[in-house]
């Protein structure tokens, strides 16, 4: 955990953000959007004093290819800092592909590549000077199926990312504890940190993976259908967790569960066939969508 920075730097960043927000007020064609964001800013101000706000992410003309096949066809989208943005859409619309472009996991697939810009605040993560490994540390990911390292204990799972970077390892123990606490798992596992990570229940494993991602203190966390393999109670626990976590990090969550999007997300984007059809405050998208295709999807006519 970084030591808390003085309050002034928070306000330093704020003016930029506010002007961005005003620009974006016109994005969804909805003045309410601007107000929503101000409320978000206000929430940021009230965030825990030792939690640094996360960074915003903006996609500019993002395209993703598998070989020659274009799966994501030019997306401009913004994920506001310290907010939860949900991506919904029918299967095959490219939501997982798109989210994997954000932390540059997409290019790990042989033959796959991405074009466009992904800006972490102002930094293009696809810039040639940027180290992809650093990007992945800054933008964490939680996967659909919980994947703790099976050969490692709970403690070592959380510490795995921390151990990668040399130096300042002295407070490993406290960092692990703090990550587990932030993931809401500490009380359940504090007595058995040496047990294998794979021995936990599905919901606990997923929270372990969240703790593992949190331990390296990322700015953004991407979640690719994190609850689809979990039971409803575990799902609820994680949704509560998301509401807490957004104070620290920006969260992007891909979900096929519209009720989930309605529960956790501040803003929601609807994707269809590789493009963003509509994006806006979650309430708007679900109760008063602008595009007929959005309406068809959220009312369950397809997908």
């Amino acid at each position, binding site marked *: 955990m970084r030591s808390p920075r003085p309050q002034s730097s928070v306000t*330093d*960043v704020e003016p*930029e953000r506010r002007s961005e927000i005003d620009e974006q007020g016109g994005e969804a064609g909805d003045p309410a959007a601007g107000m929503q964001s101000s409320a978000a800013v206000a929430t940021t101000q009230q965030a825990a004093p030792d939690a640094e706000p996360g960074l915003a992410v903006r996609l500019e003309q993002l395209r993703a290819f598998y070989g020659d096949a274009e799966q994501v066809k030019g997306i401009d989208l913004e994920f506001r800092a310290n907010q939860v943005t949900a991506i919904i859409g029918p299967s095959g619309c490219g939501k997982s592909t798109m989210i994997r472009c954000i932390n540059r996991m997409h290019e790990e697939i042989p033959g796959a590549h991405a074009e466009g810009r992904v800006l972490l605040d*102002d*930094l293009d993560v696809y810039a040639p000077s940027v*180290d992809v490994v*650093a990007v992945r540390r800054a933008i964490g990911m939680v996967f659909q199926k919980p994947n703790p390292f099976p050969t490692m204990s709970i403690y070592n799972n959380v510490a795995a990312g921390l151990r990668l970077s*040399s130096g300042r390892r002295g407070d490993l123990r406290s960092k692990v504890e703090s990550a587990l606490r932030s993931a809401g798992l500490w009380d359940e596992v504090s007595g058995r940190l040496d047990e294998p990570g794979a021995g936990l229940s599905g919901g606990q494993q997923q929270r372990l993976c969240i703790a593992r991602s949190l331990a390296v203190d990322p*700015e953004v966390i991407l979640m690719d259908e994190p609850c689809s393999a979990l039971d409803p109670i575990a799902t609820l626990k994680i949704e509560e967790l998301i509401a807490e976590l957004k104070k620290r990090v920006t969260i992007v969550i891909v979900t096929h569960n519209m009720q989930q999007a309605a529960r956790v997300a501040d803003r929601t984007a609807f994707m269809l066939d590789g493009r963003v059809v509509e994006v806006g405050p979650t309430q708007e998208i679900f109760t008063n969508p602008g595009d007929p295709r959005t309406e068809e999807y959220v009312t369950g006519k397809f997908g």
Partner: protein
Amino acid sequence: MSAPAAEQRFARFAVSPSRRRRDRFARTAILAATLIALIPLVLIVYYLLRKGLSSWSTSFFTTDPTGNTFFKSSSIGGIKSAILGTIEIVALASAIAIPIGVGVAVWLVEYGRESWFAQTVRFFIDVLTGVPSILFGLFIYIVLVVGTGSSYAGYKGSLALALLMLPVVTRASEVILQLVPGALRESALALGAPRWRMILRVVLPTALPGMVTGVLLAVARAAGETAPLLFTAAATLKTNFDLGQFMNSLPVQIYNDVTSPTTAVVNRAWGAALTLVAMILVLNVIARLISRRSRLA
């Protein structure tokens, strides 16, 4: 204002130079080790070609070794009896091992399955795969040479090789037969075919390419074996087609020539080695080509 701030905040994620160095070092070391692994192959092929090709000539393949070791190279002869002997011995060994091996495999998959008897058979066959090949030769020697008071013979070498091939053929066949979908068997039975016809007409043909691959690899392996032949078929110089007599073979010929002080004889060994490797490679290539045509695995 925000650009430096973002970069600053991003800087804490940077990969330290030592991590980068370790990554590069590890990847280079792994690549280097891989190349090192390939060097012997290159060297062996190169040397085989260089020293072996120069021995190759028509007379090399058409004359028997003369057993002369001290005279000019022209009088040491070729390797005709060795080539023919290998072909004969391995052919007989295959003729014995393949039907038996496939038969046992069919039994294991179609009848024995998981019964305790089948598990016992499987276990012992597995144990057989680990037996050092020379022991097969010793066994046949004890039973058929000493035991019967008779002498070395080509067919005794074949028996030793057949023992060596048996577990390999059985295992490979069993694996392939298990891959034949149960649905295929069931549909044949459902059409009213008796079990034997189902096996012969449906299961075996489907498994055939995969089994042929496994069998060819076993044959290739047997063709290269020396130890089982040392005390069974032994060696002789003259070509003969009588498997009841001593019989020469390429591996034994090479083995005997290796210790010779005469350069010419050693060169013949290289030529013989190249011939043997070429034969084995051909079998391997055919096996691979056939496995591509297999509809299983």
